[in-house]
């Protein structure tokens, strides 16, 4: 089993497609974090300059430092993980099964003293290790960029929030890895499985949240439906009360998207969504347990599903063409 794990990691570093997407993700994250850190630095410098100016003219009552929120530099990171992070995981998951089917090595491996579920677990562990490595690398680069470029005061809680956020990103990518593995095992044709995985990814990461947003009554007109109609808060509340079923359906569609859950938990951790400034990383994780479960639970269910499907598959001796 350990040999399969090791081989998965070695193969990934030889795979040009994997390296290309990983490099793209790294470059995008680095650029976005550096740009974010520069923005924070500009805010810090502007504040320091105004303080120096006030001191030079003899003012003793100095304004308090604004909320610089250095973690906001990571906001774009959430979008990149949502797109490229998921894609890299999908490619990894599909390749893990496809390469063995293509080379005809799957039946050979399974003639050894290894159970089918162990074989799948080894594939998963190897690829999850790669995703973890990617998440840790991005965490380290991000932290260094923040410390060296932004010069904004970073507390231990900020670092803890970044750590939890990186772990959440890892869980989110792992979900798509498992989905891809599951469909590659389920389908006789791995190319079709890859296409299907990408379609499902598009539906749950783009279409479902989009439907949720578009169906929001207040989003029907630019600037807000209720304010455009000249309604005050009480009037709009009364109308919303009449549409409670509609709101429940809209909310239900949104809840089906793990991307939305990832976004909600991440934005709370990064202080992009207001209201979590005084909470610790652990407190936010406890408040946002449903969003974390929304990423974790589908992964566990799909993983057990992959075990069930693979146990009775009799067509593993068929060799497929490569990409």
């Amino acid at each position: 089993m350990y040999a399969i794990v090791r081989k998965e990691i070695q193969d990934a570093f030889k795979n040009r497609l994997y390296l290309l997407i990983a490099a793209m993700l790294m470059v995008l994250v680095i650029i976005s974090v550096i740009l974010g850190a520069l923005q924070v630095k500009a805010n810090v410098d502007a504040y320091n300059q105004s303080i120096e100016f006030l001191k030079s003219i003899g003012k003793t009552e100095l304004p308090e430092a604004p909320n610089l929120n250095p973690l906001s530099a990571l906001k774009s990171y959430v979008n990149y993980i949502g797109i490229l992070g998921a894609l890299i995981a999908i490619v990894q998951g599909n390749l893990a099964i496809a390469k063995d089917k293509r080379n005809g090595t799957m039946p050979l491996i399974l003639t050894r003293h290894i159970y089918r579920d162990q074989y799948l677990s080894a594939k998963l562990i190897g690829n999850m290790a790669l995703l973890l490595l990617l998440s840790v690398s991005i965490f380290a680069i991000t932290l260094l960029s923040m410390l060296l470029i932004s010069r904004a005061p970073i507390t231990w809680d900020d670092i803890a929030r970044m750590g939890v956020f990186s772990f959440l990103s890892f869980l989110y990518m792992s979900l798509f890895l498992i989905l891809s593995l599951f469909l590659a095992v389920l389908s006789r044709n791995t190319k079709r499985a890859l296409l299907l995985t990408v379609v499902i990814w598009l539906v749950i990461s783009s279409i479902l949240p989009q439907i949720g947003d578009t169906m929001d009554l207040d989003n029907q007109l630019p600037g807000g439906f209720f304010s455009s109609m000249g309604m005050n808060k009480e009037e709009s509340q009364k109308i919303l009360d009449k549409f409670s079923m509609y709101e429940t359906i809209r909310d239900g569609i949104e809840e089906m998207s793990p991307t939305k859950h990832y976004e909600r938990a991440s934005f709370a951790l990064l202080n992009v969504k207001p209201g979590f400034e005084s909470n610790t990383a652990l407190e936010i994780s406890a408040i946002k347990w449903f969003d974390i479960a929304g990423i974790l639970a589908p992964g566990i269910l799909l993983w057990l599903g992959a075990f069930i499907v693979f146990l009775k598959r009799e067509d593993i001796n068929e060799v497929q063409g490569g990409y």
Partner: protein
Amino acid sequence: MTGRKRMTWFLVAILCIALFGVFSFSAADSSLAVTSNEKTLKVVNGQTATLHIGVTNDGSAEMKDITVQIDLPYKWMIQSMDPGTVSLLPGESGEFTVVLAVPASENASTHTLNVSCTSGELTSEIINIPVAVVTNPVFGYAILGCIILMIAGTVVYFRRNVRR
């Protein structure tokens, strides 16, 4: 009346006016005191939460038609308020029971409710009540149930069809 006496009376008059102003301003500001039994509030989304707002007339005159004002987050509603208004004699206290309806679409989050009472032109000081919106634990049990069911199903499946 000598100039010095006139000046003294003038200063006394100014002092009285100033004192009256301060007194009347402070009466308007603090004669209506608002409190809440709930220092923090924990609300499950899609359900209701009850808030008990106490109000005291610390002034010297009767106050009529006292109402509660709550600055609510978007899509939140006041389901009921009992009583709608109160009238208090000096030194008297009253209590409002406010039922808030939290929309099911509200995600787990934290908010601050700004609560105040008004009686005509008079407005009390605003008190802040931190509110934590939590997800209904039933969803957690449902998710856990699904996972346990799937694990059990997998174990049974592996027992029926020999592990290989």
